[in-house]
């Protein structure tokens, strides 16, 4: 279980998180929605320790994330970044097997390559992309490689940062299905941040809406259309009129 209690984060006078409380149950797919610049990425980066919160507490399975062995802690996570964040200088298979080629999870090179090719196959890519460089791939293929890298070491917890942004609707659907399948078959806990409502309905068990630095609404995905929350209603229907200012 991942738990955030009163997490705050500011950059100068810009108060991004003003006291985020969130609970994500083990083995569930949790989606955080919200407008651009509302702190969705900061929230998951805080869990990973990429950003240090100003106040509040974050625990994973009851353990304070600031008190854990860093390597062992990060070995439990996989993350798909918004732009895939593939390493330009490494071929695709070494990107996927990055964690398996060094550190505590290091495997022999041949074995790491085989695992990488298997993970590429799992996300619908053939082995002939393994030796290509990321720059030679399309945006959709890069996202898939990023997804393969995120699941390469069979993590317990996977974060997906805007997994369908910049993709055409068909490719977005493919990625959504892949995420749903991978989370189900691995039994992993997933947190996805997105403002794509199609993704939300395809991926989520539970949803939270982040607005003005706090969790505005949280609940099962089946309740989002009947929540009665004016902020959530305006967001999911994409209305210009409502409590959320259209110009931010």
């Amino acid at each position: 279980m991942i738990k955030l209690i009163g997490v705050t984060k500011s950059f100068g006078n810009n108060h991004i998180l003003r006291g985020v409380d969130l609970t994500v149950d083990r083995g569930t797919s949790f989606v955080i929605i919200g407008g651009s610049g509302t702190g969705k990425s900061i929230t998951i980066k805080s869990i990973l320790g990429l950003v240090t919160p100003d106040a509040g507490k974050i625990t994973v399975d009851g353990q304070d994330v600031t008190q854990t062995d860093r390597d062992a802690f990060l070995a439990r996570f996989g993350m798909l970044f918004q732009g895939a964040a593939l390493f330009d200088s490494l071929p695709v298979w070494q990107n996927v097997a990055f964690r398996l080629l060094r550190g505590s999870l290091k495997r022999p090179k041949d074995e790491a390559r085989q695992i990488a090719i298997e993970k590429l196959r799992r996300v619908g890519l053939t082995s002939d992309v393994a030796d290509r460089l990321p720059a030679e791939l399309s945006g959709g293929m890069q996202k898939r490689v990023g997804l393969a890298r995120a699941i390469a070491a069979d993590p317990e917890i996977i974060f997906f940062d805007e997994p369908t942004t910049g993709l055409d609707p068909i490719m977005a659907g493919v990625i959504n299905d892949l995420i749903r399948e991978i989370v189900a078959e691995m039994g992993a806990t997933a947190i996805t941040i997105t403002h794509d409502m199609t993704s939300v309905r395809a991926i989520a068990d539970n949803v939270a809406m982040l607005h003005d630095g706090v969790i505005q609404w949280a609940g099962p995905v089946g309740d989002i259309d009947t929540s009665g929350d004016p902020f959530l209603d305006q967001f999911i229907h994409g209305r210009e009129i409502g409590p959320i200012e259209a110009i931010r």
Partner: protein
Amino acid sequence: MKLLAAIGRSFLGLIAAIGRIAIFAGQTLGHIVRGPFYLRELAVSFLNIGWLSLPVVGLTSLFTGAALALQIYAGSARFNAEAVVPQIVAIGMVRELGPVLVGLMIAARVTSSIAAEIATMKVTEQIDALVTLSTHPMKYLTVPRVLAATIVVPLLVTVGDIIGIFGGYAVATGTLGFNPAAYIRNTLDFLELKDVVSSLAKGAIFGFIAALMGCYYGMNSGRGAQGVGNATKGSVEAAAVLILGANFVLTGVFFSL
């Protein structure tokens, strides 16, 4: 009053920047002595910083040594001391021009490249990705580059010194009428061990500065294309100024104290 406040703010900003760079340098040195070490990254850095810099270092040194011989010949002819050309070319190249020119060439070629590469990695979240993959960015990106530059730039300086002296030799024996054997003998006789040691020491320190500034500005880059551009520009400016400042201090340490 506003002018004083602006000067004060600039001064405090400068002190803070020096402090941040000093902390970054300390952290880098700390990671150099503690594993894990990424040998593939180190080998790639040796190739990029050392081997691939040889053409620019060689050509720069060759032309500088040749021009130096012409200048010394023209200057010394005013008081009938043309015979000092081999000695002055040797001492000029080994003590000053070799290390400084190689340092500045490395700042132009390597510092800018390191800063742009790491800044782009930061902007595209590759640095964050490294962290999530249990890899410390300083160990993976900074240490191999700084270590490789510190080791390989003295070798480049040695190559530059030799090629620069050869440039002077070629001009002196080819167009100024010097005897080749006498030129080489005068060069070797005049150089002292301290000259070579100072050249190597300067090379190591300039290499450290050049790579460190590239990594520091890259890691602390702002967002977007402008952030990458500013990081690249700032890194080269800082490296060049620090190299010239360090050269003055080292020259004082080796030859005036």
